[in-house]
């Protein structure tokens, strides 16, 4: 499929949406209105849960805060719904920012549990605050007016709702294809990966969280002015899981999935409401919950990926054009070759009683390739984690380019010019090669949230794409930039990590077993690449078990054994060192 065809499909979909109210009966239009409103909340969750990997049970509470805000402004104080929108958005986003600030450092299921907690607490507030109508709710909410036209009929507000939905969809698609959006898509790869790219995982999570709340706020505002009445019921915990169901059924990773999921759940609910009374008279309201929960559980057991990604699998691939030549991204000033670049002094790291790195000191000079070797369990990877900030030192000092980075956060260290690869490859398998490498350019680019969503900074994006393609070509993966990273063999995945690290224009490249899993020819090519990087004054620190590879490549070697430094020196000296031989082969009997 080409971009042209996709634009045609979008235009056709919009035309159908515009024509719908002239064809459909009033009941169907009302149904479509609710689908649109739920879609907004579900799109927010699709971003938060599907893209960002943060499962939230509290979306209904955000929708509720917005609905109650606008109800308070309009029905109780008599101001315009547009002022209600302002308060709804400001209040909801502020609450989300505060909650996010407090909870987003929590890991995995703890974070989701906290969403249950504040979701419940906020829902309880609606029914218990004096002045918000308590359990009776607030009625008499005025309709939204655009100029002189009051959107009283469902046919009228339909256009407003769906205009907002379409706009939100387009903005979300733009956003996900921009610098911040790529960082959001990387979140599921874990904090260590994200921060190693110079991205503050916390900041991106907070942004995602507030966007989700903002979309919830839009949904709540429209909800209040469509139904003209709010009560605590629709914002309770049960609705929170229903939004989650919409997002996941539609396909949590996809923004369009939010709309599809909202449509399916709403229509299904409607059908269930029609037919359940025929099966069980009287108890249909409760059977509805049972049927729904059962369906959701079945869905989670059987088809977790959701409908949109499933259907998208049948579509022909999107034909993307290779990035064109563009203005190159600015380069970092590199230090003079031979000057001191990295200084590790007495670094120590303990895990409980185990001392993984024990008072290790060494230096790396600019422009050299330093090999860090040692038997399994010697503490090489821990050392790497210490100097990239993935782990904190218990004692000792690490200085990079003349500045102490001992207490720096991981993403600060990455931005300072240390790029790394991982012993266990950390890529985003569902993103293309190009997008994976583009992640590396994050710290060299500036495009923010709004510029990304509105596509305002296309020049920088073009430069970043060109840079990413250059790095792919440099490591020999330039022929298929739109292949998914997960489809590469393991060896090439390691090489792709190097391309991603290079895209950050690092001063120091830290490679953790780059040659593992490569075939002989590939190893030779890798060695050649690393030599050419050295020729460009890039400094490289590497851990590797293939001695032939190490000895033929590096300038100096540091040997670790049981967490302590055994010795250091030139390859020839290390090879003949008795202590090193003993560490690797055991003592000579």
């Amino acid at each position, binding site marked *: 499929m080409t971009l042209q065809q996709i634009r045609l499909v979008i235009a056709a979909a919009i035309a159908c949406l515009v024509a719908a109210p002239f064809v459909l009966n009033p009941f169907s239009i009302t149904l479509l209105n609710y689908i649109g409103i739920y879609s907004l909340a579900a799109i927010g969750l699709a971003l938060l849960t599907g893209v960002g*990997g943060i*499962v939230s*049970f509290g979306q209904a509470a955000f929708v509720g805060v917005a609905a109650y805000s606008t109800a308070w402004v309009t029905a109780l104080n008599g101001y315009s719904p547009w002022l209600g929108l302002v308060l709804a958005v400001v209040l909801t986003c502020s609450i989300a920012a505060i*909650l996010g600030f*407090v*909870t987003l*450092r*929590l*890991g*995995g*299921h*703890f974070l*989701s*549990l*906290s969403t*249950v*907690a*504040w979701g*419940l*607490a906020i829902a*309880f*507030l609606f029914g*218990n605050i004096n002045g918000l109508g308590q359990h009776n709710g607030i009625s008499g909410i005025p309709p939204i007016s655009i100029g002189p036209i009051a959107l009283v009929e469902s046919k009228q507000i339909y256009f407003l709702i769906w205009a907002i939905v379409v706009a939100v969809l387009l903005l979300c698609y733009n956003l996900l294809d921009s610098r911040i959006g790529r960082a959001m898509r990387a979140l*599921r*790869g*874990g*904090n*260590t990966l994200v921060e190693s790219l110079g991205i503050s995982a916390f900041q991106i999570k907070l942004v995602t969280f507030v966007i989700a709340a903002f979309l919830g706020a839009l949904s709540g505002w429209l909800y209040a002015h469509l139904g003209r009445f709010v009560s605590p019921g629709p914002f309770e*915990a*049960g609705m929170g*899981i229903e939004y*989650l*169901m919409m997002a*996941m059924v539609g396909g949590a990773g996809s923004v369009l999935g939010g709309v599809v999921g909202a449509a399916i759940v709403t229509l299904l609910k409607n059908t269930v409401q029609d037919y359940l009374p025929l099966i*069980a008279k009287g*108890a249909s309201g*409760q*059977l*509805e*919950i*049972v049927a*729904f*929960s*059962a369906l*959701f*559980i079945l869905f*989670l*057991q059987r088809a*977790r990926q959701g409908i949109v990604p499933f259907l998208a699998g049948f579509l022909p691939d999107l034909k993307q054009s290779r990035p064109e030549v563009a203005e190159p991204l600015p380069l970092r000033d590199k230090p003079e070759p031979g000057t001191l670049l990295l200084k590790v002094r007495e670094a120590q790291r303990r*895990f409980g009683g185990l001392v993984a790195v024990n008072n290790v000191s060494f230096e790396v000079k600019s422009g050299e390739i330093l090999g860090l070797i040692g038997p399994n369990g010697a503490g090489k990877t821990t050392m790497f984690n210490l100097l990239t900030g993935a782990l904190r030192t218990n004692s000792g000092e690490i200085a990079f380019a003349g500045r102490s980075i001992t207490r720096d956060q991981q993403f600060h260290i990455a931005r300072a010019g240390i790029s790394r690869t991982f012993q266990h490859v950390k890529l985003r*398998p*569902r993103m293309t090669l190009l997008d994976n490498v583009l992640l590396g350019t994050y710290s060299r680019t500036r495009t923010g949230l709004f510029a990304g969503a509105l596509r305002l900074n296309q020049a920088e994006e073009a430069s970043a794409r060109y840079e990413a393609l250059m790095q792919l070509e440099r490591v020999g993966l330039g022929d298929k930039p739109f292949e998914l990273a997960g489809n590469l063999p393991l060896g090439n995945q390691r090489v792709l990590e190097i391309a991603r690290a290079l895209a950050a224009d690092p001063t120091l490249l830290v490679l953790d077993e780059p040659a593992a899993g490569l075939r002989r020819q590939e190893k030779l090519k890798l060695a050649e690449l690393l030599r050419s990087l050295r020729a460009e004054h890039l400094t490289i620190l590497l851990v590797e078990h293939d001695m032939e590879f190490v000895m033929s490549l590096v300038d100096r070697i540091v040997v670790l054994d049981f967490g302590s430094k055994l010795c250091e020196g030139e390859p020839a000296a290390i090879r003949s060192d008795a202590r090193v031989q003993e560490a690797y082969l055991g003592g000579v009997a």
Partner: protein
Amino acid sequence: MTADIAAILAIDGIATGAVYALVAIGTVLIFTVTRVIFIPFGDIAAFTALTLAALDAKQLPGTVGLVVVLACMATIMDVVSLARAGELRSVPKAVLGYLVLPLIVVGIVWLTMRFNPPMPVRIVLALLLIMPISPLLDRIVFRPIADASVLLLLTVSVALHFALVGLGLLFFGPEGVRTEPLTSMAIEIAGVHVSGQTVLILTAALVFSGLLFAFFDFTLIGKALRATALNRTGARLMGIRPARAGTIAYLLGSLMAGVSGVLIAPVNTIFYDSGFLLGLKAFVGAIIGGMTSYPGAALGAFGVGLLESFASFQSSTLKDVIVFSLLIPVLLWRSLASQHSEEEVEE
């Protein structure tokens, strides 16, 4: 607030906390053995109270229908998956475990009811009837996704809770129940009136947690459960079946939740949906204890009980808001305390 009032609130809080503690211990038990954060335990407690009330009123409790339906579903699922795997020899065992045993329990209840059994027997019957529910739910809902992430299991668990609330209304009806008091005695401690019910709640909580510790320390099955909790793969290599350990954990957990339901039924009016808040508050207690420590969970549950008691004195309408808001600082503190835990990468 005077010292008298504080003492009354404290006693009240400790009694509530003891009820939460039983559910919290059950929650921790299930979580460590199966990694499922079993939100519906509160529902199990509420269903026990409703079952007991029905038995008191000489009616056939709705639990019977629930158990029969779940037993049939679990049996069908198990037989189908066995047939697909070609292990037809195991089918009789599956039918025995998932269908015959629960039906025997139902039969015992049905028969015993004809003889107007005294209160203690009715309590035992209620507990017997409630115990198969969670293991059957485990088979139907969680077994097919036993290896999924904690997060997915949690999502399923929340959905399951809503299904159970709906089923609760269907099988028990909308009326609230309050069972007859287990004892009418009362004692005075340092001038403060303490009801026999409170003493009973505390005693039961202590006895049942004590029994659980004994079970873990002195029986082979208990040790197998602990092994599974520590390392599923390792336990499997030692010949322990995680699925079976899970079933035992669910049985024990249901017993704890059931006892708490019996204890709370004479004190609070219980509705079909009362379990959610009960379960969640117990769960807050379990999280305070870090989700892995039994004494920690019990202490946390007592803390929640006390907080709720004092909060309801300040503002009865906002007590739940206060309790759930408390969870956030607690989670933060827990999360900081367990910094080095491996992050779970989702895909």
